[in-house]
């Protein structure tokens, strides 16, 4: 009887405890890996090759965080998530961070219990149509069917755009981007709408990419970036500054190849970034060479961009807005000091 009472008491007290947000950094260190939510497969951003290795611009942010916190960019467990699953997976603690071409919106930032740790790709929603449709502008799409991925900010952007232009459309929504593309290819819809970068990725996945064109209109702002849970500021800072370290490294001209040299012989800014001087790493609760690990293992932003979505990739995207502010873009890291 006593035993039973004790059990009941333990049970009851256990219930009245509220769970607290444990330090994500401690969890990551204890686990020895970063759990990172990525897309179910999007060329250039997060895709898996035949060996099961993930690569892409979004994947590199996960790898940068793993390099900064664990000193090894390969210590990432990737969780492929659909657009609908992503925030729930983050809120439930299934993943430590989300890096899945996610648009930074006011509503998401303020009501989902999440924080956007920056922007790693400035994008905008656009339209892709089959060439033989003979459409040259989005304004000619009145009465057409749209293939959209469910649960995205594009779903909202396109509703606004058509209402603003007093046109009608039918929204055919799919769960994953692959299904969306399949719907577009089968002719279920006249056009596919998504962020410009995704359209480029989906287009090269078509049976015959030459048949499809991307219309010139960009109908919305879609700043894409990594996301963390609210309530753990240290982890928020780590993800934010891991991304900024990549951007800053490009600004300073630090690359994977010359990082060791710059660390020893570079200017004061190089030395501060790479951990030869200053307290940047310690302030984040990381080792002094955190950014050095990022740059040597993942590369700076430019290297990651060219490798995954730029000229060195099948997507061949222009830097455009995503060029460093020094080169006419809007990519700008806060001061590293």
């Amino acid at each position, binding site marked *: 009887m006593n035993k039973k009472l004790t059990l009941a008491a333990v049970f009851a007290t256990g219930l009245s405890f*509220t769970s607290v947000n444990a330090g994500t950094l401690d969890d990551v260190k204890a686990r020895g890996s970063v759990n990172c939510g990525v897309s179910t497969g999007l060329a250039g951003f997060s895709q898996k090759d035949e060996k099961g290795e993930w690569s892409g611009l979004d994947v590199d942010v996960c790898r940068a965080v793993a390099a900064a916190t664990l000193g090894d960019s390969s210590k990432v467990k990737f969780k492929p998530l659909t657009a*609908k699953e992503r925030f729930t997976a983050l809120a439930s603690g299934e993943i430590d961070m989300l890096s899945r071409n996610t648009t930074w919106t006011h509503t998401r930032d303020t*009501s989902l*219990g999440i924080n956007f740790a920056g922007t790693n790709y400035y994008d905008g929603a656009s339209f892709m149509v089959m060439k033989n449709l003979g459409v040259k502008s989005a304004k000619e799409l009145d009465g057409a069917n749209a293939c959209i991925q469910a649960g995205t900010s594009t*779903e909202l952007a396109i509703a606004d755009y058509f209402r603003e232009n007093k046109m009608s459309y039918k929204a055919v929504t799919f769960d994953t981007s692959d299904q969306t593309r399949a719907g577009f290819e089968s002719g279920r819809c006249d056009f596919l709408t998504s962020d410009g970068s995704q359209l480029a990725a989906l287009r090269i996945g078509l049976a015959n990419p030459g048949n499809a064109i991307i219309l010139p209109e960009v109908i919305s702002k879609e700043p894409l970036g990594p996301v963390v849970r609210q309530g753990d500021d240290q982890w928020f800072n780590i993800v934010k500054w891991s991304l900024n370290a990549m951007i800053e490294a490009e600004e300073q001209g630090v690359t994977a190849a010359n990082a060791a040299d710059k660390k020893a012989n570079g200017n004061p800014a190089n030395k501060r970034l790479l951990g030869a001087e200053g307290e940047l790493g310690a302030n984040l609760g990381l080792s002094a060479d955190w950014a050095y690990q990022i740059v040597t293992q993942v590369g700076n932003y430019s290297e990651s961009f060219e490798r995954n979505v730029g000229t060195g990739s099948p997507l061949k995207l222009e830097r455009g807005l995503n060029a460093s502010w020094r080169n006419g873009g809007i990519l700008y890291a806060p001061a590293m000091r």
Partner: protein
Amino acid sequence: MFNEKTIEEVKSANRKASSDATSTAFYNNPRIRGLFYQVALVAGLLYFFVTVIGNTLDNMEATGIKTGFAFLDAAAGYDVLMSLISFESTDTYARIFVVGFLNTILVSVIGIFFATLFGFIFGVAYFSHNWLIRKLAVVYVEIFRNIPLLLQVFFWYFAVLSSLPSARQSLSLGEAVFLNVRGLYFPKLVGGDLAWVVWTVLALAIGGVFYLRRWAKKRQEITGEQFPVLKASLALIIFAPLMAAALTGFPFTVDYPALKGFNYFGGVTVIPELMALSIALSVYTGAFIAEAVRAGIQSIPRGQTEAARSLGLRENKIMSLIIVPQAMRVIVPLLNSEYQSLVKNSTLAAAIGYPDLFNVFVGTALNQTGQAIETIFMTIIVYFIVNMVISFLMNRFNSAVSLVSR
């Protein structure tokens, strides 16, 4: 062992005797004790739920997640593919909820109707004297019962309906009915000023059919004479409204679907998502119902058939008058759970983008608002209530067909 038992029995008998004779302490009274434990259990459960819900709310507030049902009044901001009531992107999440609910009901009703039809056809066909028909029933059941439903949904959607021609090369039937990859389009009757007369006559004709059935049954019980109910009913339902239409000068115009720009407009559109899901649900559940029907028929002793034959009844009369009414007692409880499964399985709509409740509310609305607990709670309640209603109706039906002992 025997001895112990006897001692226990004696003891309990003694206890009973003493409690009857003298008043024991109230805490030894089995009734009060029982009540105490029940109250304690209920209190414990209440405490459990209050703590869990309180904890959840606290944690959500601590992590900055919005709670409450205020989001229902906010504009949804996205569009829905198909809606039985008018819907625009400026309408609220509450309206999205209703839109999704109606779409779920629509696909469930269509699914239940055709599943029952397929189930009874193939269930009875199993007993056919024709080898081909009998084997066809077996093949149908074995194929569709043994393949996962999601796979069947994908098959109908991505393999069958997606390979239909594009909108500009639609298959057409007399330039009135069109079928293409975007759906099935057929003409719609648009009623004019006097159309209400025709609809009223149609309603009266349907009511008349019920009256006719009762009258024919009564007459047969009294006189033994049969009346051709089916033929008379069909004639009534077809000719009465036709005559009414002729007298009022056909107050209808036909709205034909026509290709304008990208799509067919006008008439009635059945989207391929609805077709694929309805076909998959009814074919899959139909296979289970066919088995239920077969079980019901096999539960009737062979003597019933033989007795009916010796009375000189024809084979189809034996089935419809003797076997099926008795088999219904076995079939109906099974039907109940098949119908409930069908409603629950309709949530597979999310896989192909049919805008049912689960898809538009737990899918998109949850994602846009982030209010997982509220949206999932509301959706659970709906499926719970719908299935309770099905259960209630089927139980009513079951008691109507069950054996009445006189």
